[in-house]
């Protein structure tokens, strides 16, 4: 078997094992979530939790494992670490990655190899990401801050369904961002960096606005900004409103958004043959 075929097969095996493990975790989580509700647990309840929330994680984890195993190749842990952290770069950053990899080939002592590879890996991760992820970060922060503000004011004046009603939207946005970045950057890494940077920048932008808007919802309507409900005895104060907004938004946003940039990056890289 050629080295390329071996790496490909290793990637396939890693993706399969990871998918099975993550699927198992989501079945367990789905059962635990269903059991937390009223009444007996049904297969349909667990199935919906797994399909709606868990499946993107299964696909994303498998794609990530496939790319990691394919990127991390070499004679020992040091070489695999360095090939993984320098993979998928373009232009001058790719040349520096190659410089560090070839330098490692001339180091023979195993301890020295590990130390040298670790230092180079840190450097590879610190080498600038280029302009695209930073543009994505700035755009995502300001864009999602503006969208959160607009959604908050429109909903407050309307049916007050709460801003979590739009929690599925960011996942699709950053799926598209990662897909385009992976295609144009011709690498999974390019897509993943841009998509993930966007995810966290958008969360930061949304949280900043939501913290202020939660107080507005509390003062105007006495309800949570996240879902438009209020506890039986009312909200304790503005601090409680802000706390609920921050924790609720962070949890549900990340839950429904995190796997999508990985899937987008994998699809973008696959479409380009990388």
């Amino acid at each position, binding site marked *: 078997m050629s080295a390329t075929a071996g790496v490909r097969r290793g990637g396939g095996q890693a993706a399969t094992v990871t998918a099975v493990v993550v699927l198992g975790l989501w079945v367990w989580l789905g059962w635990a979530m269903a059991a937390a509700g009223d009444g007996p647990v049904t297969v349909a309840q667990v199935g919906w939790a797994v399909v709606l929330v868990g499946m993107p994680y299964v696909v994303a984890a498998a794609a990530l494992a496939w790319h990691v195993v394919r990127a991390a190749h070499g004679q020992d842990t040091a070489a695999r670490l360095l090939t993984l952290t320098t993979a998928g770069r373009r232009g001058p950053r790719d040349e*520096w990655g190659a410089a560090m990899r070839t330098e490692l080939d001339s180091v023979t002592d195993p301890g020295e190899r590990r130390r040298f590879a670790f*230092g180079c890996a840190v450097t590879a991760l610190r*080498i600038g990401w280029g302009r695209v992820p930073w543009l994505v970060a700035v755009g995502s922060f300001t864009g999602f801050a503006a969208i959160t503000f607009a959604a908050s004011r429109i909903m407050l004046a309307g049916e007050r369904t709460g801003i979590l009603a739009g929690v599925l939207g960011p996942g699709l946005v950053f799926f598209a961002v990662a897909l385009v970045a992976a295609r144009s950057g011709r690498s999974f890494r390019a897509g993943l960096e841009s998509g993930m940077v966007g995810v966290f920048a958008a969360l930061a932008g949304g949280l900043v606005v939501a913290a202020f808007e939660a107080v507005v919802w509390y003062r105007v309507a006495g309800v949570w900004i996240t879902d438009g409900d209020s506890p039986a005895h009312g909200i304790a104060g503005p601090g409680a409103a802000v706390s609920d907004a921050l924790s609720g938004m962070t949890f549900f946003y990340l839950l429904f958004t995190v796997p999508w940039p990985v899937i987008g990056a994998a699809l973008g890289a696959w479409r380009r043959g990388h």
Partner: protein
Amino acid sequence: MGYTRKPSPQTVSVLSTLAERAADWSHGYELSRTLGIKAGTLYPILIRLAERGLVETAWEQEVPSGRPPRHLYRLSADGAEYVREVRRARSAAKGTTIARPATRTARVEA
């Protein structure tokens, strides 16, 4: 020259060592061992210096069999001028003797 920030002691070590070697090429691991600087510190310095045109880079042309060509580094003309500027600035600040940063094997007086 576009390098207005005061260089770190490690950067000065790298520059000084490359200046001493003049036209001879150096490679990363050997520089790291000579200066006692970890790879995680050395490579960001080399990358910055190369981006600013103070260090020239090249790939090894004559390679012994059994290993791939290495990336090589030496001071550019701008880099040599910059080292002279740094030395002048340091001697002006500290008197006539320049105390170089401590390194494992290189501790050179100007």
